[in-house]
């Protein structure tokens, strides 16, 4: 029974690949349906092949505006969260201070809290302060929930850093500032980059917190949410597909570049 034996040995591989299929199936559907020409307002049933949406990705009013707003918010939220988060990470790894436990829980809690709770409580704050809901309240909220993720990403990297490298720099008469810019920062850079990338992805795709604190401002996820009620244009599939392809290419290219650099070093 060679087949049964083979099956026994590779059962976990088959199960894993099935899960991978489950994870990727919606992306396949999104891509295929970006070439659809739906009959009604909703793009849920396959009708016929068409390139209409790809030729005119901004053809739906409000779509590209919401996309550019989401990109702007994501860029600013990434900058803010990365800056504040990196400072906290360095303080946590490099210094002894009081209230360390309190700081750690304040970083951990936003990640252990359902989004809807953070969203609702932040809204009560804004309502009580009489704040105008819109771009700024969204940005404030995004920096808040991205911060913890940046801290953990940067902290992991800084913690694994060899302190001898900085000592060496000091022994070679580098000042504190020079040591930081020429030695510490380059070593911490991958952690900071990973934190920033995560913050960007989280902010760009956030719906629940934005839904509560956006007022009448429409980000891209808010646009998709609205279209699920009114009618889904094919163009959102075009944008979803493009985002997927760009992300995969970006990762592949950076990995290939990394491989080549490693080979050159060796």
């Amino acid at each position, binding site marked *: 029974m060679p087949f049964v034996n083979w099956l026994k040995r590779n059962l976990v591989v088959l199960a894993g690949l099935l899960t991978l299929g489950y994870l990727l199936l919606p992306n396949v559907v999104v891509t295929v349906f970006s070439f659809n020409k739906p009959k009604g307002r909703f793009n849920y049933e396959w009708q016929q092949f068409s390139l209409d949406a790809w030729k005119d990705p901004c053809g739906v009013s409000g779509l590209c505006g919401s996309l550019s707003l989401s990109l702007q918010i994501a860029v600013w939220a990434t900058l803010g969260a990365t800056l504040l988060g990196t400072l906290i990470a360095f303080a946590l790894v490099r210094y002894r201070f009081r209230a360390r436990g309190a700081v750690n829980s304040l970083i*951990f809690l936003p990640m252990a809290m359902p989004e809807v709770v953070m969203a609702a409580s932040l809204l009560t704050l804004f309502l009580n302060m009489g704040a105008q809901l819109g771009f700024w309240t969204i940005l404030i909220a995004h920096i808040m929930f991205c911060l913890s*993720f940046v801290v953990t990403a940067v902290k992991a990297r800084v913690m694994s850093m060899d302190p001898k490298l900085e000592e060496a720099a000091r022994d070679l008469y580098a000042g504190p500032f020079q040591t930081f810019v020429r030695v510490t920062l380059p070593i911490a850079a991958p952690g900071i980059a990973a934190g920033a990338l995560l913050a960007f992805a989280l902010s760009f795709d956030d719906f629940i917190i934005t839904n509560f604190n956006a007022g009448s401002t429409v980000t891209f996820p808010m646009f998709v949410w609205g279209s699920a009620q009114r009618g889904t244009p094919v163009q959102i599939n075009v944008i979803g597909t493009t985002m997927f392809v760009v992300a995969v290419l970006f990762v592949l290219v950076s990995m290939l570049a990394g491989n080549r650099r490693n080979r050159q070093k060796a």
Partner: protein
Amino acid sequence: MSTLTEAPPPLAPQAPEPKPPKRRGRWTPYWLLLPGILWLVVFFALPMIYQASTSVQTGSLEEGYKVTWHFATYWDALSAYWPQFVRSVLYAGTATILCLLLGYPLAYLIAFRAGRWKNLIMILVIAPFFTSFLIRTLAWKTILADGGPVVGALNTLHVLDVTDWLGMTAGDRVLATPLAVVCGLTYNFLPFMILPLYTSLERIDGRLHEAAGDLYARPWTTFRKVTFPLSMPGVVSGTLLTFIPAAGDYVNADLLGSTDTRMVGNVIQTQFLRVLDYPTAAALSFILMAAILLMVTLYIRRSGTEDLV
């Protein structure tokens, strides 16, 4: 790449932090912490207090709200919306178990069996993140469409009879049933299970497997006695990272479910944004927060990994 897989380290157990060296500049750490911590205090901690205060207020939108310590709101909210609470726990719990069952083989595959395909599979697990999750959730409407191939296959295999009996589906439909919501939740939070599982499986020394084999353990015994216990940190943080967001989610219940599948998140959302009954909404959100924190604490105690934070 590797840092993305380490995304949930706060929940993963870490080695005890080495004592940081003493430095000059007593105030430097406080200056470094100040802006970020201030941000979290003002926009995360303070809102919790505002929310607690809102939940015991009475009044109306026109005349404004006042704190009257009206704790009855909590009782009213619970007695009116307990089915939604129960549903949240049930759906999120089922989705978490399914995520573990589906995610473990894939994490195992990436950690031990993928060979040169490892990086590619890893990319494929993370890449869907970059397509808006709302668009991907909407795709399930197509996949689970009435009379579509998936529903047809489930019907032929008599899966729908079983789920029907469990009360998860009704008739030949999957869309707008609890099954669709659980399916969406499972799908959306699966990567949060896979990544911590992979991180803890990856750390296991391969020689332990060989040793188990040398001692005549069958593969299943090796898994049960060696691999699975060593991957417990990943299981714990994976289940938490799946259950917490799933319990508060309202997107899947709204897009894939019906009015009979509303979860507590849906109630909080409508009360806050449509009905504008702020005290009830704040009370519900407060109960959800307390329930989750309590469950997480108990769970972490029981699983014996207290050094999670």
